[in-house]
């Protein structure tokens, strides 16, 4: 792996930016060099939310810091999938929240994995608001870029005290469901 481009996209309110941030921190802890950028339409809440990560083995030259062709894409909502799929490689690993996205929306060629992050969060963790963390747990297992423990450590250190417990559970849930998924 020379340079890995990851995109996470969804609606405002789905915790996309926090997910991107925690992912970035975890990857850094793992030893990667990471550039992570956020875009969102602050003006119209409920609008787009995007986190992009460029992951390098070592610190490279600082150059264009956005995803051009994502190697890994996570879509948490259908609207953003439609909007940004042209920024995803034809052979990319694409992980989607099947609570909101139907299989037929996925492009051929993608190595697609459908997991109902939101439903799992709501049903098993008690609130849809941790769907983002469930996703991060799954991502650990699916990509192998970092371990579940590394993710949990990041959560421990960076999440507001009241939320840590819940988030740790969500991460585990995600990891487990991905495992079950055979990923």
């Amino acid at each position, binding site marked *: 792996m020379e340079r890995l481009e990851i995109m996470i996209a969804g609606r405002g309110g789905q915790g996309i930016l926090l997910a991107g*941030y925690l992912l970035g921190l975890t990857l*850094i802890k793992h030893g990667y060099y990471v*550039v992570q950028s956020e875009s969102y*339409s602050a003006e119209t809440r409920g609008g787009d939310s995007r986190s992009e990560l460029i992951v390098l083995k070592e610190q490279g030259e*600082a*150059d*264009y*810091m*956005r995803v*051009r062709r994502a190697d890994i894409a996570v879509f948490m909502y259908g609207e953003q999938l439609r909007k940004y799929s042209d920024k995803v490689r034809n052979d990319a690993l694409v992980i989607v929240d099947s609570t909101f996205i139907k299989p037929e929306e996925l492009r051929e060629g993608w190595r697609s994995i459908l997991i109902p992050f939101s439903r799992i969060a709501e049903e098993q963790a008690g609130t849809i608001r941790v769907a983002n963390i469930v996703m991060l747990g799954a991502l650990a297992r699916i990509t192998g870029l970092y371990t579940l423990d590394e993710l949990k450590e990041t959560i421990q250190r960076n999440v507001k005290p009241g939320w840590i417990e819940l988030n740790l559970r969500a991460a585990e849930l995600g990891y487990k469901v991905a495992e079950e998924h055979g990923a």
Partner: protein
Amino acid sequence: MGEASLGFLNANQAAAEGAITAGLKFFAGYPITPASDLFEYLAKKLPKYGGVVVQSEDEIAAINAIIGASWAGAKAMTATSGPGFSLMAESIGFAAMTETPIVIIQNMRAGPSTGVATATGQGEVMQSRWVSHGHYGIVVLTPFSSQEAYDLTIKAFNIAERLRVPVVVLMDYVLVHTRERVVLKKPPEVEVLERKKPTKPPGEYRPYEPDPEDLVPPMANYGEGYAVLVESMAHDERGYYAPVDDVYERLVKRLVDKIEVNRHMVVESATYHTDDAEVLFVAFGSVARSVMSVVKEARMEGKKYGLFRPISLWPMDEKGLRKAAENAEQVIVVEMNYGQLVREVERIVRDKPVHLVPLLKLDLPTPEEIVEAARRWL
């Protein structure tokens, strides 16, 4: 101190960390997107370092408060974006005139006027230099990464304190929404300079009497017994109003010349494949990174592109630019406005065609978009 640590920070946070490392002790600000999160970061953190953070009723109050604080002995800073920077116009000149060390973080967003608060832009190249009335000197530095935001904020304080000038750190919306690894070097790994203190006793000390080599007067703080007069009118070495030709000329020239004389501690630029560049790009800030990708990819195709990136925007590394352009057949300035930096480049590189690629977009242009926009010259 002394230990570097690692951060995963956006440019605002990195600049805040840089300021803390440099010894920031007073921050006054007024909320504005996208500078607010720098302010908020410091509001939480600076009090733990014994510093004070305060929100004022507007940006005019903020800049005057930091000027007052600087004379009271604190390293002082504010942060804002376009509309707030415009409001500070008058008092930036006041800081320059009274040779007060202050640092202003300016987070460029899309203008003019209220524009688009949540989008990027580079419309303040000229404004950052000429915003206030009358002729004065000012330093403007422009990072293109979180690391540089950290490093240049420290440098900004060093210049401000050593040269007694206002220093602007000009960042853009894209940088403050990008997190990267930052090595948070601490002294002695990184140099932190302090203002020169008076060597003369109170009776003899004159607050605007420069040391002859560097043209910078030592600075006595309030409360130290020097009875210093901070004078916004044209003044002599004592700070006394002196509407007299030669005093006036001496003062205004020195306000500009002291930066010239100390160019070595100010001027900075970076080049990328410029040695044999036939097409020289010039760009700064986040856009420069997109241009780097353009150059990198062109080189892979065997095209001799290069990039000159001013890091100090004012004053610019004019020699460096001319050198980078030596072998170029043309110079292409890529900026997110409708032609500002290009005017300086035209002026500095007088013997080559200089083209403008104005990218009036609201988000960082991709390398492809830049190539597309510059196609007619490539």
